[in-house]
């Protein structure tokens, strides 16, 4: 059913209307409206029958447990990001009414990305998300970095979506339809892959690669992440990425696989089109490059940006595995990643607000100045590294197990060694926070609201590292795709 989306749209319109009555100072209140809308949407989503899996709008989008789970993720991400934005000092200078509206718009776009099964709808949803993110990245018009970020983002985005579109057109030409399932039929019918098909595949891969910032389509990431307002950076590094993966899974496992995909527990790639080797290689290169480049970053936001590339690489490992457990691992990691990445970014925001720096070198002794922030940050960083007993470890554990189950040992070892590299640069932050500096006498405790939000993010990071059966089951149940 389409009710949650409708509620989102509704709350957006409501927000626009409400914004008229706020002056510059109070326009952030729109954020509250939107949060309300999100909550209601979540409620509606909860009320829709869990196991339903139907198509809507002439089969252009589906509502199935897979999409449903991702919708929850989007709602959660958006809510947290809005809460962050309400607390960051960066946005104090500008009128933020539209800001929240745009975030809500992105959420809608992501909803569509997660559930669209028609080339048109796919392109549409991607563009919705992209265009709005362009604006948000440049939301701080007065700042050079922000403007530049948005410029690069828009050119890059338009460029790669253009390429993807061209790929779509070729695909359409090959099969004569835009509906994924029909395309799949005719692709299966047409024996072996033709050159055209290969070209189309790669061009589409480029489009998705840009969304999930996989090498070599990742170049925009560091600049945009550094330039954009931090909450937006956090948002972009989680929300659209997750949406991108949802779309990637759906499209690739629908189109470019043998017909048994999405039903069997293990399946084959479309014969004549062995794309999973390429995907695996991409995964390996992506995580390695991301990590290797993160090593020499001096700016925490930029470091997290590169590390998010690395994480995209990890997640990507789960897709070429071509098995239920692979997709399962991807979904699990996305959930875990949400908590730790947003958490890390929120700590960065809080530190920026209080100590006014994003440079690692200036993080010295924060562990003593503010034990709470220090401990929380340490938890997120360990989790991002993938050390037990944190959720990050479990996420990696599932990914590796999927990969090893598929006998791709080399990929597993590459991934494992990568987490050693990751340890090095994440530990640099911990080192600055704790190994530098001395015992302080007056301690900084973030505001109650911030502390609670941090705890809300940190506690699951630990809990899911020790006992994760609930979400494991939840994901297992949502691992159901719509099938015609």
């Amino acid at each position, binding site marked *: 059913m389409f009710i949650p989306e409708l509620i989102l749209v509704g709350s957006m319109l409501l927000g626009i209307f409400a914004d008229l009555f706020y002056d510059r100072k109070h326009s952030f209140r729109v954020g509250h409206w939107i949060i309300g809308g999100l909550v209601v949407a979540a409620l509606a989503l909860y009320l829709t029958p869990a196991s339903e899996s139907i198509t809507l709008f002439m089969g252009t989008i589906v509502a199935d447990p897979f999409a449903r789970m991702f919708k929850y993720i989007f709602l959660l991400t958006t809510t947290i990001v809005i809460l962050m934005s309400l607390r960051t000092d960066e946005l104090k200078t500008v009128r933020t009414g539209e800001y929240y509206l745009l975030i809500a718009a992105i959420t809608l776009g992501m909803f569509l990305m997660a559930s669209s099964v028609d080339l*048109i709808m796919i392109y549409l949803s991607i563009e919705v998300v992209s265009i709005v993110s362009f604006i948000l990245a440049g939301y701080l018009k007065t700042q050079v970095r922000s403007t530049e970020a948005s*410029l690069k983002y*828009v050119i890059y985005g*338009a*460029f790669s979506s253009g390429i993807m579109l061209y790929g*779509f057109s070729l695909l359409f030409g090959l099969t004569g339809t*835009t509906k994924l399932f029909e395309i799949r039929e005719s692709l299966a019918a047409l024996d072996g892959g033709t050159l055209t098909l290969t070209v189309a595949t790669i061009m589409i891969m480029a489009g998705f690669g840009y969304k999930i910032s996989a090498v070599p389509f990742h170049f925009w990431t560091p600049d945009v992440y550094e330039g954009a307002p931090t909450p937006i950076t956090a948002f972009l590094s989680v929300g659209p990425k997750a949406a991108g993966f949802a779309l990637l899974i759906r499209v690739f496992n629908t189109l470019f696989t043998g017909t048994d995909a999405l039903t069997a527990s293990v399946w084959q790639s479309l014969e004549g089109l062995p794309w999973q080797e390429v995907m695996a290689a991409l995964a390996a290169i992506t995580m390695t490059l991301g990590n290797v480049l993160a090593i020499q970053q001096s700016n925490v936001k930029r470091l997290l940006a590169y590390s998010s590339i690395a994480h995209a690489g990890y997640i990507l490992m789960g897709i070429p595995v071509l098995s239920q457990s692979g997709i399962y691992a991807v979904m699990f990691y996305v959930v875990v990643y949400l908590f730790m990445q947003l958490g890390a970014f929120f700590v960065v925001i809080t530190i920026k607000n209080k100590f006014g720096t994003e440079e690692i070198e200036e993080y010295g002794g924060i562990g003593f100045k503010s034990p709470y922030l220090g401990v929380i940050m340490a938890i997120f960083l360990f989790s991002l590294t993938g050390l037990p007993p944190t959720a990050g470890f479990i996420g990696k554990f599932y990914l590796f197990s999927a990969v090893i189950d598929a006998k791709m040992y080399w990929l597993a070892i590459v991934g494992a060694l990568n987490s050693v590299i990751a340890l090095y640069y994440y530990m640099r932050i911990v080192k600055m926070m704790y190994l530098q500096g001395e015992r302080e006498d007056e301690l900084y405790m973030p505001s109650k609201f911030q502390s609670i939000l941090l705890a809300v993010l940190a506690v699951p990071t630990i809990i899911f590292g020790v006992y994760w059966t609930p979400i494991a089951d939840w994901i297992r149940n949502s691992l159901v795709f719509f099938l015609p």
Partner: protein
Amino acid sequence: MNDLNIYLTVGAILFSLGLYGVITRRNGVAVLMGVELILNSANVNFVAFARFGGMNLSGHIFAMFVIILAAAEAAVALAIIINLYNKFGTVNVDDARSLKQ
């Protein structure tokens, strides 16, 4: 060669020109035009396939949507370029390079 291939060739040429423009133009507006070319090359393909492939209308519909989105994208992009002009006093995209390693 038959009519479809002519259209496809046109599309391909457009696509290449678009790529070239995007990559080599300094002027932001010109870069955007390159992007437009790429999008429209895709449109040409869609329509051509739909017409000569003797298929349903979804190709045309797709083209419609692309045009709309292209417009929206262009709007946003131009706004950003104007903003760039306010900041840097130029519309050359390569002058914006404060963010780097």
